[in-house]
């Protein structure tokens, strides 16, 4: 556990430059500055490592970096997406708090590979402490001559800037993030063109997630094969999971890919006494919910979770026990997407509000029988028709919640109250007898 991104977490002053360097930090970057590594070698190593984008889409990082037009004339950019906003996720925050230099080094390496001399780290607006920690890290790195222009008198330059967002979930979408970074309203751009060709200020731009960048130095330091071997096939290395919900010890855990879910649950202290596992959202609120049985059989890696019918996503594991009302939970999620839709394109702007209003009406006891099919049909009409993935993210939970817990919704519509409360009251009654 805690072998890559959180490897210094139990050391004294884990975020400091001294601690980072004492444990092998900036070794790779110094090698690069000494001219001992080429971009092609780095890309090859990343490909071997099997590192996949940790932001949620899981695109192989080595492949992504190899697509960049590194020899194209003009300015290019590296952007780190630290706008960690997916409900249930908080591990990037801890990386920034406890290991900021790994992100700095990772971004600098990316800059070298992409031939980009400027980087931006876009940090979520609410992350004040991580922001200051990262800024402090930057200051130290500059002072140590690790960042700046013509480093070590050579040809490599890398300037890194921090940008604090303003609290919009949509700015975690990479093109909306770029718009926001440019000072515009955070709204996704349509694609093509992709950021690799037309990104920040219209220039080729590589965008990766915090955890992805943080993993890069360690991979290059210890070898791609070492990293790949930590995990399982198709899912190399370790992954940080935020385990939240009805567990005794909600926390972040960096574990090897392929770790059984049951093990992760155990690490988080398991369920509270007397509770039964009801459902798990494995990858953040945008990924389909899984029932207890399915979840208990899966391992935490891309393929296994996909086989179970969901996605690894951002590694945000939301655990629900048998006291959870699915109608209420889904309504809360729908409200989130309704509130966070940027409003740019029609299906999401209008559809998220429609979904939320219907669910709220059901929750208020005014549901109609045909509402469930209508919810599914609205979700289906949003799905795939929007500019960015927020529309899909809003529709996915609706589809999966109703698929797995339809009878609970039907009960609510029929009785105007939750089936769970009834069950639970019964349990409590029995217990008190």
């Amino acid at each position: 556990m805690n072998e890559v991104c959180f490897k210094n977490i139990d050391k004294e002053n884990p975020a400091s430059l001294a601690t980072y360097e004492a444990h092998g930090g900036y070794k790779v970057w110094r090698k690069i500055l000494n001219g001992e590594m080429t971009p092609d070698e780095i890309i090859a190593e990343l490909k071997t490592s099997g590192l996949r984008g940790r932001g949620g889409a899981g695109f192989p990082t080595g492949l992504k970096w190899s697509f960049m037009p590194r020899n194209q004339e003009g300015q290019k950019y590296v952007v780190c997406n630290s706008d960690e906003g997916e409900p249930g996720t908080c591990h990037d925050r801890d990386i920034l708090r406890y290991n900021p230099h790994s992100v700095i080094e990772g971004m600098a390496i990316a800059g070298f590979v992409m031939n980009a001399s400027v980087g931006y780290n876009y940090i979520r607006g609410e992350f004040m402490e991580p922001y200051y920690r990262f800024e402090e890290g930057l200051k130290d790195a500059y002072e140590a001559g690790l960042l700046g222009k013509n480093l070590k008198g050579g040809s490599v330059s890398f300037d890194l800037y921090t940008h604090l967002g303003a609290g919009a979930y949509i700015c975690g979408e990479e093109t909306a993030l770029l718009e926001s970074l440019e000072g515009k309203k955070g709204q996704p751009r349509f694609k093509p063109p992709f950021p690799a060709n037309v990104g920040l200020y219209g220039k080729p731009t590589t965008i990766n997630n915090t955890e992805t960048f943080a993993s890069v130095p360690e991979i290059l330091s210890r070898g791609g094969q070492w990293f790949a071997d930590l995990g399982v096939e198709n899912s190399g290395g370790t992954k940080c999971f935020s385990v939240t919900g009805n567990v005794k010890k909600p926390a972040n855990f960096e574990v090897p890919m392929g770790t059984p879910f049951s093990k992760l649950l155990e690490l988080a202290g398991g369920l509270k006494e007397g509770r039964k596992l009801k459902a798990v959202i494995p990858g953040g609120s945008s990924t389909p919910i899984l029932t207890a049985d399915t979840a208990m059989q899966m391992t935490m890696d891309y393929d296994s979770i996909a086989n179970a019918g969901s996605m690894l996503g951002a590694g945000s594991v939301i655990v629900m026990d048998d006291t959870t009302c699915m109608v209420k939970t889904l309504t809360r999620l729908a409200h989130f997407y309704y509130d966070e839709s940027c409003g740019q394109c029609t299906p999401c702007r209008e559809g998220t509000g429609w979904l939320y209003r219907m669910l709220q009406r059901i929750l208020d006891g005014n549901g109609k029988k045909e509402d469930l099919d209508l919810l599914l049909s609205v979700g289906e009409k949003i799905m795939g028709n929007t500019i960015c993935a927020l529309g899909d993210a809003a529709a996915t939970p609706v589809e999966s919640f109703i698929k797995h817990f339809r009878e609970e919704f039907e009960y609510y519509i029929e009785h105007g109250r939750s089936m769970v409360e009834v069950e639970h009251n019964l349990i409590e009654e029995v217990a008190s007898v």
Partner: protein
Amino acid sequence: MSEIEIEIDGQLLSANQGDSIITIADREGIEVPRFCYHKKLSVAANCRMCLVDIEGVPKAQPACSTPAASGMKIHTKNDKAKFAQKAVMEFLLINHPLDCPICDQGGECELQDVAMEYGSDVSKFNEGKRIVPDKGIGALIQTDMTRCIHCTRCVRFGAEVAGIVEMGGTGRGEGVKIEPFLTEGIQSELSGNMIDVCPVGALTSKPFRYEARTWQMNAVQSVARHDLVGSNIFTQSYRGKVKRVVARDNDSVNETWISDRDRFSYEGLNHESRSLKPKVKKNGEWLEVDWQEALAFAIEGIKNNAERPEQLGVLASKNASLEEYYLMQKLARSFGTENIDFRLDHANLSPGSSMDSSITLSEIESVDHALILSSYTRLEQPMINHRIRKAVINGATVNTINSKKFDFNFKTKIDLLTAPQALLPALQSILKSLYLKTKADLPEQLSKVNSSDEHDKIANDLIASENGVIVLGEHLKSNPSNSVIISTVSQIAQISNSKIANLTLSGNAHSAEKVGFIPTNQGMNAASMLTESCKAFLLMDVDSQYDFFNPKLAMDLFNKDDVFVVSLTSFEDQSTLLSADVILPMASFYETSGTHINFDGIAQSFSASVKSPGDSKPGWKIIKVMADLLELEGFSFVDSSQVAEEALLSSKVQTQINGSIAESFEDSDITTLWQYAPYAIDNVTRRAKALQESNIGKINSAYIAKSTAKKLSLSQDDLYLGVPVSISDDVAEDCVFVHTSQARRV
């Protein structure tokens, strides 16, 4: 660009690599529904209505933003495409108020049209609908933002075409509101186009509100006549009155846009001061009479007062039609007078104050440099300014020499503040600089001209440009040195190899010039007619209070008992009643057939959209009958097209460029440049209510530099010639730039 083959709905098509699917479909006549896409605006891909199915691509893709690639097989109407399109339609309708019966857009609404095909007849939406409060954006555009479907066409039009970022989407999600960032209203000379681009009834014409339903109106193709462009329009009339004007596509003239002036001026036609009946003044009393009597009175008056034919002066505004100019000058010349002029507001009319343009409208947008002289093109010639703006967006640079720094909607490089009296020296300095740079022999008279760095820089830019243009604007009319300035500009253009865009004469001035509505050597020009011995005048569409360079001089003369004035006019108010002896009510814009000749020299004919009110008659008919009564030969025309045919055969009276006469300024050190605000330039716009109430219509300031104000002992908000003083650093010293709708005073 390489040619590729694609397939749309089974049709094999060749297209350019990278063309969007929607442009190919449009070209081939394949219908793809859309709301946010507009051919003249950037692609937004936000409405999602144009989703189509591309084989091998899992999700439906927007046709507007997806570039065609070789071998692509696209389906616009299969189940997958239809499902996506109908889904979007349903989403668009859930929050749209179905208030079509009381919506002005009803009947010409894109949402309504597309809903007929893609919408369902039953709504599944059982929740409350969204309501959006209206902030109001001024006198011209009515907002009903509850109807807005957030396509952002208006936002993009503002940012990309009008050059104003005043509308935008605030808020997010369902709460996104398209609204101005400020509440002072949209300040653009092109704002009305937002109405045309709005696919729904969110933005509609304010003066038109609830006036008529679109299907009740009679649409006629016409041409706008307030500027040199001759924008193509449709007039839409109901029960004999023009109720609305909208743009008509013509890529080489006005593309798809028209100025607010062309769009909203029609209100002037329905003004209460319309002249409806012929009238004669007998013993100081106005009497309504029939046409026969009025014409007889007019003819007799002219014959009696103008004892010799050359005592008759014939004057017209710059807004008459080609036919009217032609017949009027023919009448005058047949009668025996050469006193013919339409340049009423020129400070100097010595021979030579005319110069041809050497560039076309569409060529302007591809220049790499423009030098703008004496012009606020943005307000004076909005559509030409739009072409300059396009050039700037493509990388052209612009320098300006004006009395005031104007708020152009593009970036300018050097804005040289130059008072009217300093313009000629400035141009001579530029010319000298050009001579020195091109190593041409410096003419003697330039050797003593003072040089300056700024002028040198401007000369540099002219030389460096490969495809530059010098834009000469209408402020030059008020400059007594205009004739010699024009010849200097012509030399500058020649030596720097620049084109010329001459915008000094606006309206339908090209028609007037074409048919020779100016005096030959034997005749008097507009200025001399007022000071010399004319005893009778024929005025056509002239408002003496506004139209002359020195209105007081004109009014005083026309008021004299021994001066007989026949006024062919569409409007009668105090100034007409004071100055005229006979009023012959004339049809105004859109009420008569005619021809406009535009900047490119294109003669655009139009038919009458509505009948003129009351007993008023088309100008060309009045002139023809007068000619008959005067027993003049050659007026046997049956309709106006015969007149146009003959008029177009006439060869333009050539005026030689002759800059040898240097006119001196009057002794005063400080000059006044009186420029009518854009909605006060002619009889019709001055009476258009909504235009007057708009932000631009309210322009009324005498701009003075601090030092000049001191010399004149004026302070902020004092009145200068009746106009409130605005002290500004953006004005050249020793001049006052009066920008107002008030009648000119000297």
